[in-house]
């Protein structure tokens, strides 16, 4: 077996908010076509790392590269164009736009029409619009939101909003999709279909970076897992190896004081 090619490389990322060291010297590398899990107790810095990777916040030190191209320092919209799309722990949709339009906004990065073309409504523009709309319907179908395509996103039930977010992330045809707690608040059968969706993504060639609290989901699904605690990478490896790591057991799984399942209500990092 040849060594898998690295898609995303995170090198020595540190970030402090005031006096709190949210991340200190975190390095991971995510192989192309794999599912990579990121776990850790609340406040460990998982979402902060997501925000650094997607360009929302600038790290104090370190950098990220995707496919060898430097992500750090690029504006947010460029990072998307370079091939990373994400979802959010606390769902963020365009509530007043329809589900279909949410997905179509997600396609912004891969459509070309300039201002002039949009005004003149040339044939290529109309053809592109029609193609995007068809693709958007297909994506909605894939995540099971097609029946609500024309409903305002804000009016959808919670589970469907999560799925819609995933569809919107996929709309940019990313090389890598970063899912921030996609199973949060889902019941067992919803989680099972989410799992199928992620497997389908990986089989389709999309790399998945996953923050998740559902340990069974993570351990069953991920090719590799990284564990963060207090901003530090305390373990990294294949799931079985990580699960057996005493540092992980102490920090996360076994620590009597910290309940791994308890989630501080909607706490954005």
């Amino acid at each position: 077996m040849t060594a898998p090619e690295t898609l995303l490389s995170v090198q020595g990322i540190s970030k402090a908010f005031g006096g709190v060291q949210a991340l200190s010297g975190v390095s991971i590398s995510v192989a192309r076509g794999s599912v990579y899990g990121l776990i850790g107790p609340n406040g460990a810095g998982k979402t902060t790392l997501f925000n650094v990777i997607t360009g929302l916040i600038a790290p104090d030190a370190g950098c990220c590269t995707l496919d060898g191209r430097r992500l750090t320092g690029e504006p947010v919209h460029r990072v998307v164009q370079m091939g990373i799309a994400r979802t959010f722990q606390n769902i963020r949709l365009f509530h007043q736009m329809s589900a279909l339009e949410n997905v179509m906004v997600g396609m912004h990065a891969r459509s070309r029409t300039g201002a002039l073309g949009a005004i003149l409504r040339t044939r290529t523009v109309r053809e592109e619009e029609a193609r995007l709309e068809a693709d958007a319907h297909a994506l909605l179908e894939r995540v099971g939101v097609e029946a609500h395509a024309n409903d305002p996103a804000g009016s959808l039930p919670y589970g469907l909003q999560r799925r819609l977010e995933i569809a919107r992330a996929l709309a940019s045809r990313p090389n890598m999709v970063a899912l921030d707690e996609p199973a949060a608040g889902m019941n067992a059968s919803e989680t099972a279909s989410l799992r199928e969706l992620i497997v389908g993504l990986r089989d389709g060639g999309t790399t998945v970076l996953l923050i998740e609290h559902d340990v069974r989901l993570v351990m069953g699904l991920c090719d590799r897992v990284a564990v963060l605690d207090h901003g530090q990478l305390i373990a990294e490896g294949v799931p079985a190896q990580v699960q057996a790591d005493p540092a992980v057991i102490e920090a996360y799984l076994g620590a009597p004081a910290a309940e791994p399942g308890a989630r501080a209500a909607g706490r954005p990092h």
Partner: protein
Amino acid sequence: MLGSIYALVALGYTMVYGILGLINFAHGEVVMIGSMIAISVVVTIGTGSGLPGPVVVLAGVGIAIPACMLLGALLERVAYRPLRDAPRLTALITAIGMSIVLQNLAMIVWGRQYISFPPLLPSEPHAVLGATVTGTQVIIVMLTLALMGALLLLIHRTRLGRAMRATSQSPALAGLMGVDVNRIILFTFMIGSALAAVAGVMIAGYYGQAHYHMGFMLGLKAFTAAVLGGIGNVSGAMLGGLALGVIESLGAGYIGALTGGFLGSHYQDVFAFAVLILVLVFRPSGLLGERVAERA
């Protein structure tokens, strides 16, 4: 008629507010500069060229539009973008400052006197259903309706419009979707300014004159129209503009009769501001708005 001009200008206010939460008080001045440029062009090529009137006016519009778009883009880049993250009041004060700068600039370039628009457009009255209208008025109303239709199409049916709406709901999130938010904001200013240029030419053609100070009152009234319709709401601005025009005209026509001749039609400006006050007191979200509370 007057209402359609208000509506075009109000659109510029409301689109910028929808995206940035900024009242661009310099917008009235963009209209004024559109007027001035168009008149300059019309006077330069109109005298002695022998071209038919409407063609000359069209040339004026054709030059005023790109000039105003450039001006709008410049305002955004130079005056507003550096203050994007500043407190809202700072940007508002800057907008008022830009308005004063542009007025004075226009005064230096075109002088303090009224500049007249050559009588190139058809002005003979026709009787239609008991009302008296001129060809120019008909053109203005038709053109306004066409522009509004085009704008609605742009906003609701194109990729660019989708990006604009997404940006107005959440700039940060739109950025995460790959939308270049700075470009969308710049573009919004440019569209608003293009509409302002058209409105500027209309108002110059309608009143037959322009003045460096005309943008001030016009801007306030268009702002009133935008508030009346529900600021941030594009259809609202259209409705508000047309409604304000009707209210003003009827008010000016009947105020003499209502007050027994005590107040005359030169009090017509009172109505716009009475409307502004009433709307702000009784329905601050405007006719079609529903998001003001969350926005303000």
